[in-house]
């Protein structure tokens, strides 16, 4: 079960709200994700996915997680096969339109190894938004009359102002959120370029927040553009320096996704199924001795190629 809004507020009240240094290595930050937690994952599909932290969580052998995300992509295969996640809460889960439905997701959900709770995309957004607002629900006219409402716990009500039927979407208060961004200072003041997704809401809704950032910048730099800050320091518990922290997923403005890697991955999964993902985990998660050993596996030429294509996107 998900936290009640009253309990969720008490947790926040009890936290240290001071501006202290929270910069730490990824291994240290990953300890904030505990067995059985509801872990909310920032970004969407293969954009600003907190891959560095997902690898750490898998490497630590965390078990029994409920993982939620607006739209899941390749990373859910890894979390399922590693045995970290028992339940996924989302609106959509697939490798991506181009690479088709995930065979792994099908295997795990159809086989009953992972339970899948489904919301509409607006619905899962509203769940995080309600959490960020500190209220128990938000109303919408989505999802009415659909079978989604039969299983996901949304409730119908008659509007006390208009008499109209409404769908009430319950708030989501994750235990922990993992979010990858372009920059943050060491205190956890976070700025995002391009699509914001629901990351600001995740940070406000969650009990603990881990931010990985491409770049750790000075607080002076944050202060020069305070209107770009989307998460204030007191919402954040851990800050991790993570260049290429989303790779092989993209980080807008910095590098595009490694589509060729995705193609190869999809081929492997098509051929070998779950065993393919196990090999993949061995090679990319358990194998690399360090953060940079992981990146090294992609070859610097590929990293730079995807940096270049990201620049070309707006320079052409």
């Amino acid at each position, binding site marked *: 079960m998900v936290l009640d809004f009253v309990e969720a507020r008490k947790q926040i009240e009890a936290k240290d709200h001071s501006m202290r240094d929270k910069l730490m290595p990824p291994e240290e930050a990953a300890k904030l994700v505990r067995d059985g937690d509801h872990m909310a994952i920032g970004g969407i599909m293969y954009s600003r996915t907190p891959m560095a932290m997902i690898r750490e969580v898998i490497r630590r052998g965390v078990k029994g997680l409920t993982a939620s995300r607006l739209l899941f992509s390749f990373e859910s295969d890894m979390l399922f096969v590693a045995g970290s996640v028992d339940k996924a809460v989302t609106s959509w889960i*697939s490798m991506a339109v181009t690479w088709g439905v995930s065979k792994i997701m099908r295997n795990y959900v159809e086989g009953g190894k992972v339970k899948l709770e489904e919301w509409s995309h607006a619905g899962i957004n509203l769940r995080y*938004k309600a959490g960020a607002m500190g209220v128990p629900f938000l109303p919408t006219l989505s999802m009415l009359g659909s*079978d989604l409402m039969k299983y996901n716990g949304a409730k119908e009500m008659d509007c006390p102002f208009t008499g109209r039927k409404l*769908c009430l979407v319950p708030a989501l208060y994750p235990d922990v959120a993992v979010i990858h961004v372009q920059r943050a200072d060491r205190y956890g003041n976070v700025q995002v370029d391009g*699509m914001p997704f629901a990351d600001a809401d995740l940070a406000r809704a969650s009990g603990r927040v881990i931010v990985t950032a491409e770049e750790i910048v000075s607080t002076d730099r944050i202060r020069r553009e305070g209107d770009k800050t989307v998460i204030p320091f007191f919402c954040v518990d851990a800050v991790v320096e993570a260049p290429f922290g989303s790779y092989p997923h993209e980080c807008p403005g910095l590098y595009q996704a490694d589509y060729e890697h995705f193609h190869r991955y999809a081929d492997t999964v098509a051929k070998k199924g779950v065993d393919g993902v196990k090999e993949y985990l061995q090679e990319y998660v358990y194998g690399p001795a360090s953060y940079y050993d992981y990146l090294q596996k992609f070859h610097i030429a590929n990293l730079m190629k995807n940096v270049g294509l990201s620049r070309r996107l707006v320079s052409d």
Partner: protein
Amino acid sequence: MPGYTTAELVTVMASRELEDRKTAFVGAGLPLISAALAQKTHAPDLTIIFEGGAVAPLIHPTLAPYSTNEARATRFALMVSSPSDLFNLLHRGYIDYGFLGGAQIDKYGNINTSVIGDFEHPKVRLPGSGGANDISSLCTKTMIVTHHEKRRFIEKIDFLTSPGYLAGGDSRRAAGLIFGKVDRLVSHLCVMDFDEESGVMRVKKLHPGVTIEDVLENTGFAPLVAEKLETTSPPTERELKILRELDPEGMYVPHA
């Protein structure tokens, strides 16, 4: 040999259904190509919007997005906002058109993209709603765009992910879905609309060379048939040329 693929036919026919000066929520793949084609033909002032947050991006000629939720899909957009902001604009009535596909479709335009079999113990787990439920609940006019096959057009769908007219008649409204409607279905065989009274799908236009029998044979339920069946004119050379330029590798819309 018509000189175009069924996917090309569907894309062209869907694009023709889009009026100029409107806004459209567009997904990756065929819908994007279809809306872009409309912009380059009869609807230059159609605004393309991605639910991920981008309003009116300028797609790079060779760096097209694989998904609508990545940086490529936001290139030089007028606004790069959040999905929740875009869904709010949808709720307010700012989005005229939405596109949907579906694994299973019934005669009321209800769509299943969640599961084949039982929800809790599915035989086949599909990707799920994404924004589809929101679009069919809230878009002023939703258009279903799909390949036309009997196993897809069925009497009873396993799970109602995205509402059409629900059980028909007044049931959509009675469920509280007072905004928007499923307005049209474009397949490789025909264009359908929905009878406002009963909410049942109605064959309205047949594509070139298609007979009403072809449609009925490939539909797993009995649709209504318009009194005056129209016939669409085949994709023009210009339409096909533009379409192929928009998707030069045929990644989303395979070429002939």
